């Protein structure tokens, strides 16, 4: 019963009136999804991690897309930090022995209810808000939101004022306190500027999924899912529509693109 309830594909989702008619490709994708699920239920989330379609160089980013993450907290193991390690390896930030000043684009947070002692472990990163406070407060416009919902920092015009770090409700940003070496060419960083999770924008633009999603172990159930929140056919959207999910500090109205289930 539990398995049935938790399995997003064993229930029919009532189609809202405003959902556009699905195109042939969407239908095929949904069919393929069903096949994938039937064959290997454990890897669905990974398979549905929804490889983004590669964007041709020079093509504008489309606002029809809103990239997001869905994190199933029930499947996120306490003590597992594979998503953190994958992000660090992919983007070139690491522990330099200065825990208070080292950059952390993603971290595992242990949340405990003081009344019951029940605890949860979950990854927190830039929440890629629809209404990002960091973008509002940035004096130069270095903090910006791409048309597809990814919140980034333009390292060329960031003056290092850190006002975005004051404004971010999620403690998601890091200031680079010292000189860096061995940077990844696709993830430029610089002393004196602010940075945060890019949702692996370089991978998304190449049609791949973020490193953290890819690294989340399939055998553990795959706690992380990536996809287009604006595409009703996308697995992430279907799961969000079927099962309750939450946004961190939803009361602030920032509408994060990262959602949590079973929080």
């Amino acid at each position, binding site marked *: 019963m539990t398995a049935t309830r938790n399995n997003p594909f064993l229930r029919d989702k009532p189609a809202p009136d405003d959902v556009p008619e699905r195109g042939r490709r969407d239908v095929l994708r949904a069919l393929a999804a069903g096949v994938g699920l039937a064959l290997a239920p454990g890897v669905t989330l990974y398979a549905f991690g929804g490889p983004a379609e590669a964007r041709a160089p020079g093509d504008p980013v489309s606002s029809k897309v809103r990239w997001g993450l869905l994190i199933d907290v029930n499947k996120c193991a306490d003590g597992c930090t594979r998503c953190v390690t994958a992000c660090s390896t992919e983007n070139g930030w690491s522990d330099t022995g200065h*825990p*208070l000043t080292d950059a952390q684009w993603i971290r595992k*947070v242990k949340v*405990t209810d003081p009344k019951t002692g029940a605890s949860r472990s979950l990854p927190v990163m830039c929440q890629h808000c629809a209404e990002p406070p960091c973008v509002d407060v940035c004096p*130069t416009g270095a903090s910006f939101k791409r048309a597809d919902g990814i919140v980034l920092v333009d390292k060329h015009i960031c003056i*290092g004022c850190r006002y975005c770090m004051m*404004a971010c409700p999620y403690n998601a940003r890091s200031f680079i306190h010292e000189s860096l070496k061995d940077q990844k060419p696709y993830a430029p960083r610089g*002393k004196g500027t602010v940075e945060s999770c890019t949702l692996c924008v370089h991978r998304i633009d190449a049609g791949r999924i973020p490193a953290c999603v890819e690294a989340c172990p399939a055998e553990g159930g795959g706690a992380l899912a990536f996809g287009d929140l604006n595409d009703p056919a996308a697995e992430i959207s279907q799961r969000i529509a079927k099962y309750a999910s939450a946004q961190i500090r939803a009361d602030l109205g920032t509408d994060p693109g990262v959602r949590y289930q079973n929080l």
Partner: protein
Amino acid sequence: MARVVYREIEGGAGFAGLLAILVAFTLTGIASAWYMEHYGHIVTGMNNRIVWGMPHVFAVFLIVTASGVLNVASLGSVFGRTPYKPMARLSGLLAIAFLVGGLAVLVLDLGRPDRLIVAMTKYNLKSIFAWNIFLYIGFLVVVAAYLFVQMERRMNRFAPSVGWFAFIWRLVLTTGTGSIFGWLVARQAYDAAVMAPLFIAMSLSFGLAAFLLVTMTVYGLTGRPLGVHILNRLARLLGIFAAAVLYFTALQHLTNLYAAEHAGVERFILLEGGIYTALFWIVQVVLGGVVPIALVYIPATARTWTGIAAASALVIAGGLAQIYVIIVGGQAYPLILFPGMEVQSSYQDGVVAAYMPSLAEIGLGVGGVAFALAIAAVGMKVLRFLPDSLSDDALDPHRQPARAVNT
């Protein structure tokens, strides 16, 4: 009132020595900034939780004081209080000097101060920070114009209207400075509209205290007459401003205390915050509020240079403590990601952030103060900002004779 004669301050070894000290502190500030930029902010006490540290405390203090110090000029031009008019030029000079000093600290604490040109050419007009850049630059222009119409005899007739404009501008500017914190919706310690009027009250108080100290120092050193009656009138005004700061501070905390969601941050600042609680109650409220108010109203001290200077110095010390508690204390208290839950992580979630200001940060902050005072000193030396006499008889010949003597 007799015609006021303005004269440059006298030079000599005393002036040169004072200026040399100020320049030395300014150079120390520049060296501190260079050190911080060369090695990165790793050499400061700041970290990813306390992103604004001691330099911001000094910068915000100087900026808030800059707008407040202009009020002596406003007393004359806007509120028609004739005895204060001779002090308007000094008031304008100090306003410019303090603002430039504060902005210098702010800019030199940036991660990339070399990109100042970016900050001046690229604006996100939704950002209160960007608005403040316009407000700061505008303030410098408006106050410079205000000084010009006061000092150029043919333009004197424009002084009241430019004075009004400067008065309104300074209120908007301090509203902007307060709103840098007031509009931070995510943080428990900020996110309050009262920040704007609180900062205005702070500016009135710190600005007047700074004006009194500078005026007493300059007139004392140059041997020009400065009446205790006019000092006493300004000091009593300082008492009202200091009371206004206490009022808005009480309002800020009582409003928060009423909301259960803010109980944590209030308990932190008011009871359990260690250094922040001590700074709040002892330095800000008692030494920076209650004691100076008493000093300017108790007859034994209210009419003495010592009493008035002590009250002014205490207001400034309390002001620095208040801004430290607001800026650093407000960040030290953890962000609430999951209300009602306990959290822990490798990124200091859920814990009070540690911060110990480094010497470089203090050097930069003090350098900004020294730079502001050096600008003021040079200004007074090369242009006619200071009246020959601020004696009570010169300012207000019709007043009742003073009841006490200068000590």
